[in-house]
């Protein structure tokens, strides 16, 4: 184990995989100069042939990765800088990417990682702060992970690179400098394992990313009064429902915190799945704490529309009331 930051952990996974496998390369805008810090120093180690800067041509940039992946000889990472920029690749990302393998007879895998930073906190409004999530989950054929801790960051990135499918690896601006223990060398977290990050008996809170931190903060605060179990999906697709159901067997109460708009979001999907598979486990309706169904404003009003520890606590109290 070593101490490192979340962003160092992301980079460390990329480095380990690039050292181990020549077919991994990275393509994006201004990644050599590390406009976002996860690529800092990579070009010095791996050279300009493997850390590739492109023009502001998101279709071409995305296509560099998508096409190269299909040839079967490369495992690209395409870096969209801020995650919502991935929408700039339009239907090639939203439609083609997920359908390519399955529709064409499951013959040509598309091993690639779609990387982007996002999250509220910088007050830059919707474009920069928005976390693409439910739109991606809704599109079949795309995997999706989001790390909450440095160890998750390393293990999920390494698994994403090794996966033979398109995997979205998005991360949160606000966690960049968070420190934690991270296993040395190659380290993999299998995609599709919800982690019990904190044991508890009274209520389950499903939360990830910055929301995971909020959930932990609230859990610590309520310690003694309410015994909160905190689960982190880490991988949203594939999603491990079983660990959640096992937790609900114990707690019978659920709050879902999601840094995404509520409508047709991941929280709604989990509620639906619990409806379908765990209806009898619940002693009270589930509450979801999500971003309001409005474009995320910047300035000082972000906290008004995004989940905060206060809102999480209030939801916990309502569910247990």
């Amino acid at each position, binding site marked *: 184990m070593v101490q490192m930051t979340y962003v160092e952990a992301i980079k460390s996974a990329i480095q380990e995989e690039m050292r181990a496998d020549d077919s991994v390369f990275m393509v994006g805008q201004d990644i050599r100069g590390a406009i976002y810090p996860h690529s800092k120093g990579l070009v010095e180690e791996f050279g300009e042939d493997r850390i590739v800067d492109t023009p502001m041509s998101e279709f*071409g940039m995305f296509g*560099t990765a998508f*096409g190269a992946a299909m040839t079967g000889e490369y495992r690209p990472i395409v870096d969209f800088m801020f995650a919502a920029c991935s929408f700039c*690749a339009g239907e090639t990302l939203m439609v083609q990417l997920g359908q*390519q*393998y399955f529709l064409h007879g*499951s013959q040509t895998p598309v091993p690639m990682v779609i990387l982007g930073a996002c999250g509220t906190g910088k007050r830059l409004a919707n474009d920069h702060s928005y976390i693409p999530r439910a739109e991606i989950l809704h599109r079949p054929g795309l995997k999706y992970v989001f790390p909450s801790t440095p160890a998750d960051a390393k293990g999920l990135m390494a698994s994403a690179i090794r996966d033979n*499918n398109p995997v979205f690896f998005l991360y949160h601006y606000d966690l960049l400098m968070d420190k934690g223990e991270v296993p040395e060398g190659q380290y993999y977290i299998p995609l599709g394992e919800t982690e019990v990050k904190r044991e508890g008996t009274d209520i389950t809170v499903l939360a990830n990313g910055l929301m995971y931190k909020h959930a932990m903060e609230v859990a610590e605060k309520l310690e003694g009064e309410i015994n909160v179990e905190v689960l982190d999906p880490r991988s949203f697709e594939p999603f491990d429902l079983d660990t959640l159901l096992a937790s609900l067997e114990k707690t019978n109460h659920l709050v879902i915190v999601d840094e995404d708009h509520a409508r047709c979001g991941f929280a709604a999907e989990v509620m639906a799945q619990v409806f379908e598979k765990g209806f009898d486990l619940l002693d009270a309706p589930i509450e979801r704490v999500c971003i309001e169904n409005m474009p995320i404003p910047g300035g000082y009003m972000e906290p008004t529309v995004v989940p905060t520890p206060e809102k999480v606590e209030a939801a916990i109290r309502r569910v247990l009331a």
Partner: protein
Amino acid sequence: MGLSKKLMTQLFTNLVRAYHFDELFARRLTRGELIGFYHPAAGHYAPGVAAGTVLEKEDYMWPHHRAHGVPHMLSKGCDIKYFLAEHTGKETGCCSGRTSWHWSYPEFGIFGMTGFIGGGFSQMVGYGWAAQKNGRKQVAMSCTGDGSFNNGRAHESMLMASNWKLPIIFLCENNGWAIHSRIEDMHPTEDIASLAPGLNIPAAIVDGQDVFACAEALQEAVKRARKGDGPTLIEAKTVRWREHDIGTPDLDGYRQRTKEELEALHDRDPLKIATQQVLETKLLTQAQIDKIHEDALAECDACEKFADESAIAEPTVEELRASVYAD
């Protein structure tokens, strides 16, 4: 002419095959023996035939949707029976019957397609990138219509190919139309090739009704690409004798295309032109030509037989669920 006799014979043969396959697909669609739709070549055969013929098996290719890529694919060596089986929903289809009209011949560097025009430009950069890096002197051939060059993806793809000197050949199969829209109304200059200088890409305009002229230009471009000299844009001026896809009215804007206009387009029939050329240059005798047609028709029959005798693709939902992700 810079083409070997062998290549010319291949080109002629592939042109004949493309012609007969186009008739076959059109006939089957009309009779309800093909799923979905069909965008007939109808005069627009030669550029695709030339593109497929000048490539090696391991080169990458994005076939044009016109004639559903059949001229391109058969010329590159793909066995069309798998595509016909796909187009009839059969288990033996090149996509296991999952699409009705998508191609997929990975061993031939053809990885699939999309219904969104211009979608291929994007991944083309990746094919070119891979071809450049892997050191095996592969090239990548992008075949699309005039209309697709009005899409921003064309700009990005050509620009990046030019920046990086990628071994990509951009073939513009310009038939003058995008569905009901005349190129004159949709593109601001006479030639699509006029885009090339602004992107520092060499370009050539060729007679798209002359399969040998197309092949010569494309062969030159392929050579440049293999040498590492970067992309080329080849614009082949061709025609469309029929409606965009079978059954759709054949309109000029919102008025019927005139008989006179359509008849004039028949003046330059690629098959007639090529036949005359191979006879005049004594490359082939009439008897040999007849044999090529016979063989092509026999191939068509065999493909139909294969497709028709294959089982309908009706996997269980469990089987389908298990194939969404690669292991």
